[in-house]
């Protein structure tokens, strides 16, 4: 699947004048972000759609649509995390068949899912969206220094959990 830069600000600026064009350009990436933040939640599409609905109300006044969308998605997924039991969160990941995902990736994602929401969101935004820490801080509504401490603790836990040192990209 061809995948453009996740929620790229430059692309959004070009589409700002036209909400529908903006929607078309970013809806799939928004769903992917919601999908990752909810560990494969079946309602990732609904969450992304809700984010656009909320954004539509203020679109004419939003200077950085990408950042606005990202922040809204992170918040909506956090709400879902609040309302769902951890075990329910794992259902989405479990629904993905083993043939779809290698065992090492599944293990990694299970440990990621077990992290507190903010730690998970930091890792998703940093390692999937390639977002710098100040952008992540904006999305989460925390200080940049908090992003770093969250990432540091999340990675420390992942490193501890991932005792298997296989490294897919180093082979």
């Amino acid at each position, binding site marked *: 699947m061809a995948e453009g830069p996740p929620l790229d600000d430059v692309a959004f600026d070009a589409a700002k004048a036209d909400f529908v064009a903006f929607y078309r350009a970013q809806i799939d990436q928004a769903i992917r972000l919601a999908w990752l933040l909810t560990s494969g939640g079946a309602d990732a599409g609904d969450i992304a759609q809700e984010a656009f609905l909320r954004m539509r109300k203020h679109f004419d006044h939003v200077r950085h649509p990408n950042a606005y969308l990202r922040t809204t998605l992170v918040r909506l997924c956090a709400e879902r995390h609040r309302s769902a039991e951890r075990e329910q969160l794992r259902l989405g990941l479990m629904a993905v068949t083993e043939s779809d995902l290698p065992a090492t990736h599944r293990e990694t994602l299970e440990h*990621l899912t077990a992290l507190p929401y903010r730690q998970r969101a930091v890792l998703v935004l940093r390692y999937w969206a390639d977002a710098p820490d100040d952008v992540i801080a904006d999305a989460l509504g925390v200080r940049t220094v908090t992003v770093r401490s969250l990432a540091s603790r999340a990675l420390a836990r992942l490193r501890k959990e991932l005792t298997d040192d296989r490294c897919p990209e180093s082979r």
Partner: protein
Amino acid sequence: MTVALNRAEVRLRSALREFAALAPRAESQWTDSDDPRRPSAERPPRRLVAGALGAAALALTGALLVTHDAGPWTMRSPPLFVPTGVEVPLTATAPDDRPWEQPPLVVNAGSMAAVTVPGQGRLMTYVSVGEYRGHVVQESCVPGACAPFSGPRPSFVALTSSVENGTGSSNLWIWTGLPDGTAFVQLQGTNRLLWQRPESGMVAFPIDFELGRIDAVAFDAAGAQLATASWATRTEEPDVTPREGLYRQLPQAAKDVAWQVIDTEMRSCLAARGDEAWDDCVGVADDAFLVWMQSQL
């Protein structure tokens, strides 16, 4: 850059990329029926809407636009002025020994204050330190949200969520460091018009999750408008300073532990010189932070 990552990070990046590829695609394109400006009865129901109006999840510290109004155009109302809307009472209360925050922040002991919002529990405010543009700076904080401040009075506007503020089930719209003489603050832009009498120089309104514009107006006892605060469009950052440039050159691993370096320096200085040396210790930590950044390159 993948080469610089350790194995856990490489695995994580790879797993996320492949998992993202399994996400569903959009089932439909945007249509007029999706437009929220149309009457709600015409819109298709969405599962998330009801839940989304519950407690929001993350704290948000936004760019603050506070305008002090002191010009001759200010209209003065009769002395018994009371703002319109519903009063949300606020009560001053004793602060906790330790502010609710993870990781624990170094805190200026003299800065701690607390208020109680009915049904929402105790909300702490305090001054801490953090890194901003390569410097160690003081920050005005509520749990989950801090912002650098300049000048003698910590002041900022924040929207903290129920997840972050640890006070109850609602998000709180907070304005700290109110102007002297503030007797009332009126909040406009939510479903209702609310007002509050400040305690400890702050107000805290429970509100629904809403990213739309919220404006607050501070009045004195006679109804004169003292200041306004609102969510403002983020302003452009000034040019990169040498210190900021230095910070940006740090490897990610160093940035990850920068807060620990600052925290350690502050705690060490305060232990040696006492809490009253807070301001001096900020300077000491700033100097030490510069030396540490240089050592990391």
